[in-house]
């Protein structure tokens, strides 16, 4: 299990439940490595601002993470983490490698929802 304060997706079943039961979902699939940690930290901070987005992580090396690793949208990816944005159960955006909080915010605003300020 990844050492973050995000919701952990531990199986393919949990991943399916998460994306089917929530309109907007962002899952970061990685390891506790240098390119992944900044993305988890940005997500933890954004969780308080985007109340209608579910933020979660998934361990890249778990067998069930094939549900992310084998996505057509990720077939060209060769850097961790794989970050996937879902709307109504469908992939709307996928990125590979480190992303800044600004980049993630732009993708959330563009692909998912209006920001709800608290």
């Amino acid at each position: 299990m990844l050492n973050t304060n995000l919701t952990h997706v531990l199986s393919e079943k949990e991943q399916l439940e998460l994306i089917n039961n929530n309109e907007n979902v962002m899952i970061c699939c990685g390891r506790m490595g240098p390119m992944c940690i900044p993305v988890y930290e940005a997500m933890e901070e954004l969780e308080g601002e985007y109340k209608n987005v579910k933020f979660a992580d998934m361990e890249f090396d778990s067998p069930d993470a094939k549900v992310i690793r084998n996505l057509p949208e990720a077939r060209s990816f060769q850097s961790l983490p794989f970050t996937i944005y879902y709307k109504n159960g469908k992939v709307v955006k996928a990125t590979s490698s480190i992303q800044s909080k600004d980049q993630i915010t732009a993708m959330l605003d563009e692909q998912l929802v209006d920001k709800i300020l608290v």
Partner: protein
Amino acid sequence: MSSLAFIIEINMDNQFDVIVIGAGAAGLTAGIYLSRAKVKTLILNEGAVGGQMVLTHEIANYPGVENISGYGLARIMKSQALKFGCVIKSNIKITSLDLNDEIKKVTVNNKEIYTSNAIIISTGGKSRMIGAVGEDKFKGKGISYCATCDGDFFQDKEIIVVGGGNSALEEAVSLTKYASKVTVVHQFDNFQALEYYVDEAKKSEKISFIMGSKIIEFIGDEKLESVKIQNQSTNEISEIKINGVFIFIGYVPNTESLERIIELNEWNEIVVDKNMKTNLNGVYAAGDSIQKRYRQVTTAVADGTIAALSAAEFINDLKKGVGEQELVH
């Protein structure tokens, strides 16, 4: 200035003795020293806490700690700073800096204004990019800046490592665990790395070298497929089929926003004296963004300590009412 900004500005919560900009090893160290000395300190950081240190998988030469990840060391430093009462705000955007007056002003996210009597700039550095055509397009799709993160995507594949310093050659050797062939491409005819790293790389049967050459273009459809390499002496261009490129060509200081504010040298590094003082009164700098030869966690920690002690002395003198001329360090 808007009335809202004014209201925020006079809020005591936004007034500090020292504001540290940057939360890498230098900035966190400054935060630890200042907060422990009861100097009211705020650290503002545009990215994730830890800076370049977090990008290091394993640190084995930090005295007193046998082996730790960069992330682990950063977490401890952050925890120490917080324990002493330091305030840390990360993943923010600094939109304005006013360092000339006695009271320094830092505007964050275009709406929050923080003030202090002294500033420590420890904005660190970032990986230098090659600047070749296609580099942005293939980042994460064949181009990587982290061997330990992405090495296993290149199992039994052919890769290039760009660079001739310690990091480049150390990572080239490390990548032979995965890749079937590693070609080191370096723009000069000799290496900048220490002899040990050069010897280790030359010992490996999987590693070959293309010297005096630069990558000028990354080519592919969805992912990287080949690169164009130009010989720096003959200008001859060749195309090599390749699965991945790892780039380790050093760092550039994060000082773009300081260009017309503070004295920088020809490499855009902040000019400081032995007390880490810049050309501006009450403004200090530390870590990878200053002019210096060696960039290590240990040197950043030392810089942060000196900058913190200098800033603390400056604040102390201010509180005692020492005249400005006497405050020259």
